[in-house]
């Protein structure tokens, strides 16, 4: 594998993020091809954390836009600072030259920059995280197309604002709805899956250096087999870590039925899922028959 990619994997590891070769290549291309990267995957597999780690790796700012239904231009790109404009009008209402006054109040000084505009106005390239894009409306996806393909934003009163420095854009989606083909075609793509058993043990060992390897192995085996069950909300890596942390605090050496009954809330967040696990024994998850 390419030396630069190996260095990338090493540096991410030092920042507590374990990259596999395929994901490292996608990050490498994000930096080199200057195209946005769309990450899809189940909740809790580390998509958001990847963007945070990338910002740390590049020693730059992370600008995060958390998407939700009803997100619009005024909350994502820009909004006019109406109070400041009104104040300016009031102060200079005696001015003869009304056109000059108009030009003044529709300048960049009167624009409130929102995350997308901030990301292209920064002098040094930043990491722009557009998180959970599947929660936003389709109209918002359309706004994004110009930014993602040309790295510019059009403001009717000001014209087109081109990026001073090109941000590294990461979009994440949990696939709660299908994204448009237009958006997908502008991005590199990577499906982030749950890590392998050894990968997840490495993550736990890295984050919790004091943990016993046997306990970490049991936690990961239990969680992996749990994910194979038809749960409403399968546990992610964050849940594995939370549970391992809980067991460590309780000075546990092994997972027992009693411990599962009392700490199951750390990994499962849905009543039906909790009941499903409570009706089974630890052995069924640690040593499944098939």
């Amino acid at each position: 594998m390419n030396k630069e990619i190996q260095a990338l994997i090493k540096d991410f590891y030092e920042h507590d993020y374990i990259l596999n070769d395929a994901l490292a290549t996608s990050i490498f291309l994000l930096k080199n091809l200057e195209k946005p990267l769309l990450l899809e995957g189940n909740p809790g597999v580390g998509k958001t954390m990847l963007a945070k780690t990338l910002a740390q790796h590049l020693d730059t700012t992370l600008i995060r836009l958390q998407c939700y239904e009803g997100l619009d231009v005024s909350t994502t790109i820009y909004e006019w600072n109406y109070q400041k404009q009104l104040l300016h009008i009031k102060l200079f209402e005696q001015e003869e030259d009304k056109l000059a006054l108009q030009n003044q109040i529709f300048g960049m000084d009167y624009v409130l920059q929102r995350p997308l505009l901030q990301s292209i106005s920064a002098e040094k390239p930043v990491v722009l995280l557009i998180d959970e894009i599947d929660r936003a409306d389709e109209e918002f996806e359309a706004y994004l197309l110009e930014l993602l393909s040309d790295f510019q934003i059009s403001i009717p009163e000001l014209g087109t604002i081109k990026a001073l420095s090109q941000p590294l854009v990461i979009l994440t989606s949990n696939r709660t709805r299908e994204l448009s083909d237009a958006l997908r075609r502008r991005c590199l793509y990577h499906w982030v899956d749950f890590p392998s058993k050894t990968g997840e043990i490495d993550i736990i060992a890295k984050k919790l250096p004091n943990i016993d390897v046997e306990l970490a192995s049991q936690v990961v085996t239990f969680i992996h087999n749990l994910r194979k069950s038809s749960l409403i909300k399968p546990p992610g890596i964050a849940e594995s870590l939370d549970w391992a942390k809980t067991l460590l605090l309780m000075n546990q050496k092994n997972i027992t039925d009693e411990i599962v009954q009392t700490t199951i809330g750390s990994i499962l967040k849905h009543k039906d899922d909790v009941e499903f696990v409570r009706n089974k024994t630890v052995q069924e998850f640690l040593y499944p028959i098939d």
Partner: protein
Amino acid sequence: MVEVTTSFRERLIDFTMYCRERQFMLGPQETLDAFAIAEKGYALDRTLFQYSLKAIYCKRKEHFDRFDEMFQRFWSRFYEEKLEQRKKQIKQLKKEKDTATIIFLGTEFNLPKKEIKEQEAKETVGANESIRLRLTDFSKVNIADKEKLEELAEELFHQMSMRFKRRLENANKGRIDIRNTIRHGISKGGLLLELSHKRKRKEKRKVVFLLDVSGSMDTYSYYLLRYVMVLKKYFKSLEFFTFSTELTHVTPMLRQNNEQQILQQIGKNVHSWSSGTKIGESLTEFIASYGNKFLSQKHIVVVLSDGLETGNVSVLKEAVRTIRRKCKTLIWLNPLKGMVGYQPIQKGMVNVMPHLDAFESAHNLDSLLKLEKLLMDV
């Protein structure tokens, strides 16, 4: 920068076309990106080249899962050998068609050579490959076409789901959003020049699918199951049951994101797959156990079955009559309707027909896609 030979560029274009034939969404930009990575020298490292093309060419999980195998096939000699094998297989299949058989209700019948030739000629004359596959009866898909049909089904179902999504949402109509109208007015000096509307979501239809998974439906059940799985993503209130000799509520198994996991779950939990058919008893059980919850004037009920009842026909008649009375619309999809000369003259279908709002075929991709209109118009 590395100098890339013309022959390598041609090979790369061939690979793009190979992926495009397999329903990858690739335009000239992706090919240019592939050239760019080749020029940067990434093609010198096979793994790096594979992962780079994967990031560029894949646009959704279904592509991502298939890409590695496709890459291996195309870029190794193995692919050439397989291609030769495939050609031999197709030749062999053509020979075998002279002695074709059809399995019907567990009995194997030999069909006259002439009849089959006529049927297939009708399907293929004047049609390109994707049209031919769309029109091919699921029960007559040969080994050579199976993979292509899978890929085509995946793409067409995806396109259909996109259309559903668009039709279900309309943001430009609805009641006036006073808050937003005033807000937008501020930038125009307080004048309310443009009215903003609140998103008014269309009431999503509630659909109940009852899929017959008995032995006589074997060749169709898999595709119909995949079809319902796609619809589940866009009808939040879709309920799915399978039946043959017993009724199984499958909806909880559809919660997984991964299609393969869903199929595995269903395989594990639906014990009556490929067994006998007791449509009437199964529908009666559905009414008794789930009727209160899933039968109302807001529900569309779709039964996917060949109607070949082996139980008591009067039970079936009564069950269908009750369902029709309690639901908004009752649609019956029968794969046998796609057969030339089929008439619903079996006892089961004769008793059911008067109570149906629609009776359609579901024997090939084309007929399944036509259902889209039926579901939207209800």
